């Protein structure tokens, strides 16, 4: 099968890779590039655990072909901390005990980040809507909702 050259940035770093045609971005990131923060919960677009940000949009990496990402800017949860300091969303998830097994956490954080990027001061309903494509087995969601609301508040305080 033909290998397809693909260039993109991952968390700001330039990548140039050859992928087999049909490789999902999820498998490309995890198996080829070694960024295991996106998780494969279903590989069919129903759990949200594989969520990444592509050119500012929330996308399911299990339903995105790597070959379509030429020239894209991709962000994953492993790229959020800066110089060892956690991103406010990561901090808020820790402080709110919003993660147990952690399998849903990177996807939740990606979904929350896109929400806060577009809607810095979200209502609870906005948060629920933004997380509605992400499944969590462990937490009962409420701690996650609270973490996102807390991160939004701390962001707006920092901005003020």
């Amino acid at each position, binding site marked *: 099968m033909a290998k397809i050259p693909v260039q993109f940035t991952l968390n700001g770093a330039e990548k140039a890779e050859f992928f087999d045609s049909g490789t999902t971005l999820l498998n490309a990131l995890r198996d080829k590039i070694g960024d295991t923060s996106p998780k494969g919960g*279903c590989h*069919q677009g*129903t*759990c949200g655990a594989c969520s990444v940000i592509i050119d500012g949009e929330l996308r399911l990496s299990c339903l995105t072909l790597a070959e379509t990402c030429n020239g894209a800017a991709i962000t994953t949860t492993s790229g959020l901390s800066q110089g060892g300091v956690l991103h406010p969303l990561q901090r808020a998830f820790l402080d709110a*005990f919003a993660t*147990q*097994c*952690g*399998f849903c956490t990177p996807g939740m954080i990606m979904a929350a980040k896109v929400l806060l990027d577009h809607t810095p001061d979200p209502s609870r309903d906005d*948060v*629920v*809507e933004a*997380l*509605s494509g*992400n*499944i969590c*087995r*462990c*937490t*009962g*969601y*409420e*701690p*996650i*909702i609270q973490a996102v609301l807390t991160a939004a508040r701390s962001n707006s305080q920092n901005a003020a």
Partner: protein
Amino acid sequence: MAIRRGRGVAAINYPTGMNLGGDPTQALVHSTPTGNFMVTLSSVDLGQGMKQIMAQICAETIGVPTDRVVVDTADTDTGPHCMGTFASRGTHRAGNAVIQAAREARQVMLEVAAEELEVNASDLDTDGQGNILVKGAPQRSISIFDVALSAHFKRGRSISGRGMFLIPRSYPDKETGAMKPSTCYAHACTVAEVEVDDETGEVTVLTVKNVFEIGRALNPKMVEQQLVGGSWMGISHALYETTEPYYPDRDHGGTDFNQYLMPGPGDLAQTEIIVLERPSADGPFGAKGPGEMCANPQIPAVANAVFDAVGVRIDTLPITPERILRALKAQASN
């Protein structure tokens, strides 16, 4: 046709561990040359917080800060034996094993310190901050760091301990059938309020109020997080989740998240959690297993609330709109 409200209550008790061929967990504890302590286990942390709890238990027993303890749950091929993480047994079984191992390690640590300070080991105590002091004369002290160095480089001792916790297999009494299949019961009670649409059969859980009696909460925030998640899971079991939603047979069961349903962040009942701490006699620092039991009482409470709302007893899970409508139809034709 109307939306009808109902309220249901249910109480449960829930055992810790299982009566298989005996229920053992073993643990090893040893110090590094710098006086940090390793706990080696085969018990698995799958998100419930086993590593944190075992570090707390080991630290409390040896008398060091929790951050001086590293827990390795590495590998069932090489670690001390554990039956596994199931049946809410992790904290109870592994915790008891860790206490035993940590006590033995603490004893060696105090013996080495006694040689260094030229006193009896029984005259020594820890300050919880990483030092060992002479009781009644705390100005005579030695750091655990120095004790570990001495053990490793001077005295040729291993500051280590072995822990073994076993609940032996229980067989039924031939005459009476009586047996002890499990230990250390946790308890819970839930009151659920629901709305049932008697036209569509749809159930909305408005509130769940839970009380859990879980022995001592060794880490209250982690206990709370598990209980909140468990309460949600109980509702999910009551109303949605099943691997066999379609008849006539298994082949028609759900195979993915489109068919295996769970409530999402938009479907949350207002949830209240109250924790009662009644330390158990045989648990590590009084703990019981809060893991699985926290997802149980919501199920009968919701079933009872549905009965209170529309007068039908659903005795098959999950309580789907279809089951409610069929029961209502049968009720009407009686």
